[in-house]
């Protein structure tokens, strides 16, 4: 059986994560990743 303290930490972490998720939904904010690039055709590596 796992140590009760570890179990408690895991449970508390899960509760905290749920609270954070609820906060995000309520506040209307959204996190996103935006990848960007340009001018791809270049000499990114030597020919030989």
């Amino acid at each position, binding site marked *: 059986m796992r140590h009760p303290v570890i179990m408690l930490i895991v449970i508390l972490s899960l509760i905290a994560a749920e609270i954070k998720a609820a906060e995000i939904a309520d506040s209307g904010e959204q*996190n996103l990743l935006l990848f*960007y*690039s340009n001018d*791809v055709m270049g000499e990114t590596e030597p020919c030989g």
Partner: protein
Amino acid sequence: MGGLSKKAFQLEKIQKLHELPYLVLDAGNLLFKQERLSPGLLAQAKITAEGIVDSYNLMGYDAVSVGKNDLAAGLAFLQEQAAGSKFTWLSANLVSKSNQTPLFTPSLIRNIGDLSVGIIGLTEYDGSFRFQENEDAVLLPWQKVLPKLVDDLASKCDLLILLSNNVTKQNEEIAASFSKIHIIIQSTPGSRNTEPQLKNNSLIAQTGKQGKYLGWMLVNWQKSKIWGRTGATKELALKKQELDGIIGRISRMERREKENLTADTSYQNLVNTRERLLSEIIFLENELYDLKESGQAPSTFENHFIALDISLPDQPDVEKIVNATKQRVNQSGRSQAAEVRRITSKSELQIENLVFTGWQTCTACHKAQTEFWQRTAHASAYQSLAEQDQQFNLDCLPCHVTAEYKDFKISDNDTDLLSLPAALQQVGCEVCHGPAKNHTASQKSSAISRKPDISICIRCHTSERDETFNYNNDIEKIACPASQR
């Protein structure tokens, strides 16, 4: 295009790490290096362009704006590529000349997580671009297309992104004119990595030239739809700290010398600084207070650039596309060379008709020097291409053969490089010292250059190809032993 497989690997890695909704965008000038390509280079450049589109399809790009360079192989070629692309090619200002209808999708809306994101594409308009005679196309200035488009999208979207092929100055004007455009990703030619700069309510960002970097932003987008002054709270604390110091110095001066202080310029400067800081602090405090009161926290971002260094891992599927594309390019060059041989009935350019003589001619009088040169990488430059099956790649060849010196080129026809005699299939003596035909005839040292200047070296040893190149150090490594003549 070797950086594509490294970019793909990093995309996957960051996506997995953050597990957030994402968008993958490109601001254009994707397919070709220049606005115009010589006919000889076109066939190979088109194959490379097709390989890039295939790689982008696999990487899951959402949209790419049409850059002027993307039109180098003609409008029809780009439209053909667009039809085979899984991502959307965007341009709001590239329209039919006859009826003004857009030739590519002007904008699109993507739903990312809980956000509705509008994306607009713009092709650079500077009035100079000339379409081919048979192309029914014209570019319009952004002032003509953006107002209606931005209004329309802003009413439907939470976040509005512009992919712009315009130069920075134009993009700053766009940012000043449209506070509803929140992010501008630009593809200004020759630019370095540009950390997002806030102009009006638009962040303007760009990755460095030649696809050597991947930019990514972690965006925390708020209902307020405004960007926060990054670190406003920290800035306020710093200003308060500075003000404390100034007030302390003023007090000490006033205690020491009660009279004639008004005539003391250092005292007056401190008083002026105190006034300036007070007004800046009041401004920042008001700004933070207003945001707090309205319940509208500002949006924030965290920007990163990843250098697509040669040592980074490759994404295997994109690497396969890149390698297959290189093979197709080489095969195309091989066929071009065979075609030239068929037409001219000659296996190669005739060395007696050229001003370059080849390194063997130099050996007759400069034996020690040519023996030294044979041990350098210059001597095996062509061989190293052949070993990678890239000896017919016209993108690579100019830097692996003896065919160019300063403004002089062996031929204006790029495909002639495919028919060079074996005597010129190395970076030979004449690449550094100049064509030797006159020198061999006259034996005069004035007809040859003794030490190459830096401009000769950086034609090939560009920062993109050879980051560690240092003229003063590297010239010593290839310096021939002193001539006894």
